[in-house]
């Protein structure tokens, strides 16, 4: 049996390596011809006129993801604490059920809801509505279930003893949370944050729906902008050879960012 399984397991190991090598190889013509520095220094992104600056898109990806995480993390933590310390059995079951369904929602559905509600609301304050703020809110809604479910699981893994002792001492839930649960679950919580961050960095379609997709630096919450992933999805279908290789550079960047985040979280 082992002889039959080993090649398949080996294939499993090779797949991510294969993906990395493949994306790197496809990006190579651009790195060789345009030079890696040009992606940083040439300011604007305008492949048709030979300008390859990815700074604005990278900034868009980072700002949207960081903003979403900052917005969603306290709420996700609040939900998980509520499930552990405050909610009754039935209430917890309802909330966990809702989280399960939310986590499985297609990103396009969240994007559609944001397009119908969030974007018009922002437009009425500061046009055009398709904006950094809309993207941050959409992305926050998408990572919120991941964060809440993950935090709930991290709390579940905390040693029962100290928590039970804290309850037995008559500590109020808020003190159990601050003094016992949060410190003990900290490593797990950090890992959850990283998973959510990786998800946010890679999200494509929902952001495509609400970001407006003009290549611009995210200088204010109300400007429209484009993420790395959005650029890939929009341009890949029609890109010529060098442009295409440049898009693979963007893919490589994304892959590097996310793998670093994922492997960094393992310790």
């Amino acid at each position, binding site marked *: 049996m082992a002889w039959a399984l080993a090649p398949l397991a080996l294939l499993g190991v090779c797949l991510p390596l294969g*993906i990395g090598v493949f994306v790197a190889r496809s990006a190579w013509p651009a790195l060789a011809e345009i030079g890696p520095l040009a992606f940083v220094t040439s300011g604007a992104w305008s492949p048709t006129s030979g300008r390859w600056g990815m700074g604005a898109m990278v900034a868009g990806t980072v700002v949207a993801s960081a903003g979403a995480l900052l917005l969603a993390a306290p709420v996700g933590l609040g939900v998980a604490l509520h499930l552990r310390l*405050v909610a009754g059995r039935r209430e917890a079951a309802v909330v966990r059920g809702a989280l399960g*369904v939310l986590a*499985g929602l*297609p990103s396009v559905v969240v994007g559609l*809801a944001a397009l119908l509600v969030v974007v018009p609301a922002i437009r009425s304050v500061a046009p055009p509505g398709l904006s950094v703020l809309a993207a941050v809110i959409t992305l926050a809604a998408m990572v919120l279930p991941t964060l809440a479910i993950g935090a709930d699981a991290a709390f579940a893994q905390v040693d029962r003893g100290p928590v039970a002792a804290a309850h037995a001492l008559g500590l109020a839930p*808020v003190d159990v949370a601050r003094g016992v649960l949060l410190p003990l679950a900290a490593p797990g919580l950090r890992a959850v944050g990283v998973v959510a961050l990786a998800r946010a960095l890679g999200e494509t379609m929902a952001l495509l*729906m609400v970001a407006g997709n003009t290549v611009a630096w995210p200088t204010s919450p109300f400007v429209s902008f484009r993420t790395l992933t959005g650029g890939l999805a929009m341009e890949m279908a029609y890109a010529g050879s060098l442009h295409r290789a440049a898009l693979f550079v963007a893919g490589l960047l994304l892959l590097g960012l996310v793998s670093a985040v994922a492997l960094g979280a393992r310790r």
Partner: protein
Amino acid sequence: MRHRLFAVATRACAVGIVAMLVGIVGLLARDGLAEVDLAFLAEAPREAGRAGGIGSLVVATIGVLAIGIGVATPLGLACAVWLAEYGGGRWALRSALDVLAAVPSIVYGLVGMAVFCEGLGLGWSLWSGGLTVAVMILPLLVRLGEEGLRAVPDSLRTAGAALGLPRWRLLLKVLLPEAAPAFAAALVLATGRVLAESAALLLTAGSSLRMPDGPGSPGRVLALHVYTMAVDVPGGSARAAATGLVLVAVIAACSALATRAPALLLRVRA
């Protein structure tokens, strides 16, 4: 006071979650429910999707799903068995799967497009899309499958060894059937993941509204249809909501099934 504040604040977060779900589904229902009927599910789309139904998209979605699950299941099962029962190079396989799990779906799309569509000459097709999502759901299948196998008590393994059962027979006759409910749950979850996917399939399965002739022809999946109708087709937002509603109903059913599947399977076997 502080304690009241804590309870109120965390409850607000929890209520917010439920409200968000109700809000999103309510929005889809408000805009789309009137459009959904049997004809909508069965008919081919007309006028870029503004009229007609989603019949050909349902077929494309099922095709991609069948190929994806069909390819990923044996591979995932093998990796899970390797990790739980044999395990040379466990660290390497686990790291590999952790990275695979974090790879953004659009990057899967890029690679799928270059490898399956162009490298293997499959073009934009259900094959390319299915193979791409197969790689994408692999980490999920392996992780849950491995957990399922690990949950099988060691006493069964030692009993098998004591009886002189060859390892492969122990695996096929005892361990895999014991872990079957976990695999079933993993498959249902993976189904939900595939149904929700749009970015990777935009680049690999294409965006054609025509009824696929077979696995070699392109097709637009339902999730991508939601995007296209909402963004690219003026006046398509009701259709986007209707398609989204159908999709969410199926995915919610999957997630409910995934939590029930182990219990149901156990009952069937008992």
